């Protein structure tokens, strides 16, 4: 919980510069190296599940792969199959019509696995939270390990948050992944 609060604090500070600067990239690389090798080997695969977004979060998630933000350089990549995934990354509200599919995607993932709620919608339903067509945020469907706030979060915020998740979990013993349950279920 502590690191999550710290992260939240970090992300509500003024946004990072528009283009990733190389000092920051170096720093992230160094941090990641220390963290992931212990725990996860060299790479992590992300399965993205859209659970009822406006597609704004998808745009910025895709932008993490461009030449500026280049998420892949940190060993994080996207995979089409949940069976190959370490991270389930949910965008959008828990739309009633997507609940079952999102659950099935989580069930298809091998453990240890982390669930990330990306964007205000996925955190608690965002502006849509009072709608009857919506069950709430991602944690209405499954336990969530990390939230990345923003509407949508910027690519820098997404990259930094995902690396922080790696760091935090690398401190735990291999066999038992740490779960930070934000609420519910």
């Amino acid at each position, binding site marked *: 919980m502590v690191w999550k609060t710290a992260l939240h604090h970090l992300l509500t500070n003024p946004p990072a510069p528009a283009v990733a600067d190389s000092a920051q990239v170096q720093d992230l690389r160094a941090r990641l190296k220390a963290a992931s090798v212990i725990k996860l080997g060299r790479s992590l695969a992300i399965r993205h599940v859209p659970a009822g977004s*406006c597609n704004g979060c998808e745009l910025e998630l895709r*932008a993490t792969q461009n030449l500026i933000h280049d998420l892949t350089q940190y060993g994080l990549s996207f995979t089409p199959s949940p069976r190959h995934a370490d991270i389930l990354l949910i965008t959008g509200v828990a739309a009633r019509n997507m609940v079952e599919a999102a659950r099935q*995607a989580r069930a298809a993932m091998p453990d240890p696995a982390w669930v990330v709620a990306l964007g205000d919608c996925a955190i608690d339903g965002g502006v*849509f939270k009072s709608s009857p067509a919506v069950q709430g945020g991602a944690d209405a469907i499954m336990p969530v390990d990390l939230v990345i706030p923003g509407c949508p979060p910027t690519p820098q915020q997404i990259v930094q948050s995902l690396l922080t998740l790696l760091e935090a979990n690398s401190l735990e013993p291999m066999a038992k992944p740490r779960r930070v349950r934000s609420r519910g279920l």
Partner: protein
Amino acid sequence: MILLSPEDWAATQGKFIALWTDADYAYALYQPQQLVAVALQDGTYPALPHPGANWYQRLAHDLNGHTAQGATDTRPAIEHHRGPDFAAPWPDFPAPDVEGVHQIAVGPIHAGIIEPGHFRFSLLGEEVLKLEARLGYAHKGTLALMRGKSPRLAARYAARISGDATVAHSLAFAQAAESALDTTPPARAVYLRAIMAELERLANHTSDIGAIAADAGFAFLDARFALAREYICAAAATAFGHRLMMDIIIPGGVAGDIEPAGTEAIRDALAALESELPSLTRVFEDYASLQDRLIGTGIISPELAAAYHPGGYTGRASGQPHDARIEPGYPPYLDHPIHTPVQTEGDVAARLRIRLEEIPESIHLIRHWLHNLPTDALAYQLPPTTGMGLGVAESFRGPVWHWLHIENGAITTAFIADASALHWPLLEHAATTGIIADFPLINKSINASYSGVDL
């Protein structure tokens, strides 16, 4: 608005855009901006014969329980939970009655980072005989959330109808509210809105063109176009404080001014794109292996397009010149003649060429407006009065229409028609002109919004 008898309603000719219902009437909108209505009788109204009306009639049934009498397509549009106890049974997807036919089910979760939807292909070998799209997975009840709120409060829902077209939707919504409440926004706001709208067009055109090239195996083009999009979004963040420019356009004007550093940032991003565009465009023209994938793929014939008259590059690549910036038109485009490219091949390559051609035009418009920004106010307060208003904006993918009924300053009914509603049935047609391996290209070349129609 013209109130018609049921007979006249069903016999109305014209280029159909959208249909919706409220508690008392069914409304139909035709190009360029003709709104007709018919009184509901026991919750029913006569079905319209236009092929584009099917989706809207299904939607009106799911949203409001109103039935189109005589409709041939009565499948649910977005409502999945129709079984007893709120269950969501899978619908039937009948395959064509051909020997050897088989089906492939894709989605709702797709392979890439895109929105959810289910595609059911019926195939003979690799050849696609039929595609049926099941939508509604991103249904969030947005229209209902808007009701009872002031236009200012409801604007945040309009901005989230489809994130890639947030500026266009906010603009159409603001114009609908302003027309309902008889307010003219200040000139500076009008110009800033148009600058944002053209930046949004550039951001989407560049990233989509790159994504199409990537699907055809040209990752290099994708990298360069994605970089152009990144520069545009970074410039938008510097200028307006948000990379997608969400929530900046509000009814009555704009929520904030352009930052002084933003003008330079935008000019730099435009210059970078402009200098690289010719060499990137040449790759499309020079590489036979790329052309082989794009030319003749996913054809929407001019006849088919004439039946649906879709907007945007999907229409323009199939002989439909419609551009809402020109007709019905809205300021500041009215003072500035724009050229809309039109082609007739109707394939992936034509849609891509249209988008490549639209880029220099947008660059030119943004530069012109940045140079000539008026200096009056940013926004005017809307009066808490009563009225009905229509607003339209040409998003990157086509016109988006917003219709608002406001009573004493609060929205009583709203409807939103994204251009995608007319693109989805065309995608189902276009998919059947090729093999299954071409579908990702065809889908990306049309790029219909899921959230924009799931509402």
